[in-house]
């Protein structure tokens, strides 16, 4: 065992929590709305900054309150994005690529709106919000199991993942609303024809997805030592990678993708560094090697179906023809 392995193991689980919180809603929102949404990065950042503003301006140290506020505010932003940008574009028959490009425009706009907000708040409070230190919350405990210390962020991340997975499972599998959302995801036109209120449920999906990601942003403020208005941007590639492993379709495979990427970024790089001397600065490289390898070996069924998948499909068709 490599020295300091316990901390590496804790980091692996911690990152897996974050990737699940951030990428499960990405998959759910894409599956239902068919929008590749770059504003997802802003959802993370805005969630974190709602906690930061609450902490820096009014001294809030309750993660529950910050999470609730972030869920409501960012969920509403997600709905507004759909009402004002995505839905009108889709109604006019814009291609998915055009909608994706519009989300990129929103992504940049939201980033600079936040920079402006941090400047305005700085003007009144003389506090630096453009880069904010870790927040210690008063309502989340940290745990000690033997000699292993589990931080607030670990406890909060674990709790959030369990609650989110449970709620998503209950909503999607056990309620009429969830079944309706799944019906829209499978065939939106057919669902609408059969009387399902499509636009209402799409807005609801945006609200839930935006809100969940924002809670992840709040938890991030108890983990990271420095949060900036670009925190979501610097994570978005990993989050998309995790989603792509699930083909942006399967929630289960997205969860597996989160575990895989977190494993490679923590345990994988630690082992490679310890035994092969590969520099730790190769960590981001490892993420994308994992993505490419996974896509080639296990081509997804959904959005990411590339050449290998078609090749496999053609081969299976040939096999069935010959039989």
């Amino acid at each position, binding site marked *: 065992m*490599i*020295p*300091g*392995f316990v*901390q*590496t193991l804790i*980091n692996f689980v*911690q*990152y897996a929590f974050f990737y699940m919180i951030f990428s499960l809603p990405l998959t759910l929102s894409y599956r239902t709305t068919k929008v590749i949404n770059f504003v997802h990065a802003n959802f993370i950042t805005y969630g974190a900054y709602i906690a930061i503003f609450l902490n820096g301006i009014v001294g809030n140290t309750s993660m529950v309150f910050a999470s609730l506020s972030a869920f409501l505010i960012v969920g509403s932003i997600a709905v507004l994005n759909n009402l004002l940008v995505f839905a009108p574009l889709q109604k006019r028959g814009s291609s998915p690529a055009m909608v994706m490009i519009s989300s990129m425009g929103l992504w940049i706009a939201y980033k600079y709106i936040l*920079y402006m907000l941090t*400047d305005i708040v*700085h003007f009144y409070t*003389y*506090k*630096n919000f*453009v*880069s*904010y*230190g*870790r927040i*210690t919350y008063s309502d989340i405990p940290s745990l000690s199991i033997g000699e292993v*210390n589990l*931080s607030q962020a670990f406890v909060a991340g674990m709790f959030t993942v369990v609650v989110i997975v449970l709620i998503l499972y209950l909503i999607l599998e056990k309620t009429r609303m969830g079944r309706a959302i799944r019906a829209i995801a499978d065939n939106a036109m057919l669902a609408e024809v059969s009387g399902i209120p499509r636009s209402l449920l799409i807005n609801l999906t945006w609200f839930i997805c935006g809100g969940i990601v924002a809670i992840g942003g709040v938890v991030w403020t108890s*983990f*990271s*030592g*420095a949060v*900036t*208005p*670009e*925190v979501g941007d*610097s*994570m978005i590639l*990993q989050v998309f990678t995790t989603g792509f492993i699930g083909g942006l379709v399967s929630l289960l495979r997205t969860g597996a993708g989160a575990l895989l990427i977190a494993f490679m*970024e*923590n345990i994988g*790089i*630690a082992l490679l*560094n*310890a035994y092969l001397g590969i*520099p*730790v*600065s*190769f*960590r*981001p490289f490892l993420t994308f090697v994992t993505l490419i390898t996974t896509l080639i070996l296990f081509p997804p069924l959904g959005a990411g179906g590339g050449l290998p998948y078609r090749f496999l499909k053609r081969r299976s068709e040939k096999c069935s023809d010959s039989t």
Partner: protein
Amino acid sequence: MTLMAASLEKPASSKKIPLNIKLIALILIPLVVGLAIGYGVAVVMMGGAAPAPKEKTVYNIGLTIPLSGELSSIGKIWEKVVSLAIEDLNNEVAACGLNVEFRLVILDDATSDETALQNVQSLHQQGIKVIVGPAASSQVKVVKTYADDNKIVIISPSSTAPTLAIPGDFIFRTVGSDAGQAKALSTLAYQEGARKLVIFFRNDEYGNAFADFLKQYFEEKGVSVSKLSYQTGLADYASEVATLASRVQSEGADGVILIAFDKDGANILSHAAESDILSNIRWFISEGPHGAGELLIAAVGRFASKVRLYGTRPLYIANPLYEDLAKRVREKFGIELGVFCEHLYDAIKLAGWAIIRAGKYDGEAIRNALVEVAKTYYGPSGWTMFDSAGDKAQQDYGVWAIVSTAEGYKFKDVGLFERGSIVFTEQAYP
């Protein structure tokens, strides 16, 4: 018929000319009289004929600084400092009776190499020949060729990579290269008793060059060192810190030297504070994270005290001009000066006076003038004379720490590097 023919032959306009002349005369005469009366009244009122005021000559100075990205924490402080610097510069030239005004054109480079180059190009397209910034050495390296080719004077207040100390180019740095700081930092760690160190550094121009110089100086002192680099621009560095802990444990190191910027530095220290292995060795740090508010949280403050964290930074300690600038920034903006603020302030002043001395807005003339102006300019960063490579010739280094005060944790300069050894001016930790 003859009469009719005669009347037809007469030009039609000949009948109207007298009418037009009358009309024009009717308009012009009152106008001329009115103007004459108006001028007369104006002269009487003003006490004599006044010459038209000469328009001010306006010179633009470009600025590409990190208002977002990895250096944004310090970049936001710089934004305030530059507004003060340009105000002071304009007041000084006015006091000298010069009818000149300097204006800043500020662009955010997001601590990105590519954006810094785009900024320099777009400032150049606006006709700007003097640019203060960019901040990071990797950015300066990227803009260097374009600046040299187009004769644009670049004055970086914070690029310190020794690899950019190149004579004869258009790059100037109002701060000394890290070859000097590496000497100060290695002396600090050695003097504090560290004998087996891990250098944990940014994998970029700044980090790599600094780490190489540190390794060289440590080996001259007989200190065992190993290097561990990390990728920049990540959202978090928990995984890298875990690998660092693993390296420290496996090698039995008694100290870490961290070469970082502000955001990554704060992130790394906050994760190191949670590690038992990393909390029980000594930590030394470069100038990069100095001034970043994220380092002043309780967890990092307690960690700094526990590991007796010391850093070095370019600083002419006890300079009254620096103290005056710090006081004015505190009073006007309610913030404390961070690293390189004084070098940035001086860079803007030097740029302005070099333009005046050059007598024309031309890159080559300004470059030559800048060298001469810097020889006699003394500012908050001290004496600014450049060496043959365009870097600050005389650079002093201070020692900083994070100390506990009644108002919370604060940065404090607690010592200086003098004649090859560290002299502590006060005790930082109990």
